[in-house]
């Protein structure tokens, strides 16, 4: 098992993953995942399987359906021993269909292997945006 520093977990979540999402940089986002990764939206029980299949399609849809996307106000719970980081954060997002900004208070649980996401779980305070 590779030992990653505490800040590695915070950085992959904020400086790579969510920075990539907020800037609609699909390559940067997908590079955080293993090829066999899964992303499970728990509040609507929606499972996206495979970095280059389900997860890529989900982000393409997210970027296409929404204007501005912002993630911030992070509080992280980092567990180096179990290679996990659970993060609470706010989301501001502008769905084209609704035509106004929406605000969410969400959390994600990220489980990593060798420095990349293997399993990601998402809880949303409103309707699922990760379809």
């Amino acid at each position, binding site marked *: 098992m590779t030992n990653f520093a505490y800040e590695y977990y915070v950085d992959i979540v904020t400086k790579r993953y969510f920075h990539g999402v907020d800037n609609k940089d699909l390559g940067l986002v997908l590079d955080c995942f293993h090829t066999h990764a899964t992303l499970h939206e728990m509040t609507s029980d929606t499972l996206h399987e495979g970095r280059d299949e389900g997860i890529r399609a989900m982000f393409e849809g997210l970027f296409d359906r929404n204007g501005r996307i912002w993630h911030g106000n992070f*509080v992280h*719970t980092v567990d180096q021993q179990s290679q996990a*980081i*659970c993060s609470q954060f706010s989301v501001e997002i502008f769905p084209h269909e609704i035509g106004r900004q929406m605000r969410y208070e*969400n*959390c994600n649980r990220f489980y990593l292997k060798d420095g990349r996401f293997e399993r990601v779980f998402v809880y949303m305070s409103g309707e699922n945006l990760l379809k």
Partner: protein
Amino acid sequence: MQYQSSLNAEELVTLATQNYFGNVDQKNLQATLNCFHDEALFTIQTSFTLHSGKTAIKEMFENFFDSYETIIHRDFTCTVDEKNGRIAANFIAELIDKKGQKTLLNNTNFWRIRDNKFQEIYVYMSGENVLK
């Protein structure tokens, strides 16, 4: 907000899974409340519900205990940030009401510890809010 915790990783897990959920499942109200500071904040984030202070938290648990005959929290996966006094846990909540209706939730809680008790708790539910 950042607090100073006096608990190590093992003690954080014990506080969350045994002292807290162990007593919730037994409907031990006082022992459950002993896990909280008087001015603790209990937020169900997925439904924007806030119970502020021990009196409000007590009322929430009285309603919860009265609503369900059986309360089981199981299959914990804990993420422990000892340095910062924070713990998150994923778990199954199995609830059976007085009519025998079963509710299964796959929830995630976040706790922020001050000294040796909960100062803030955040609950993210996979279904409808059961902590009203």
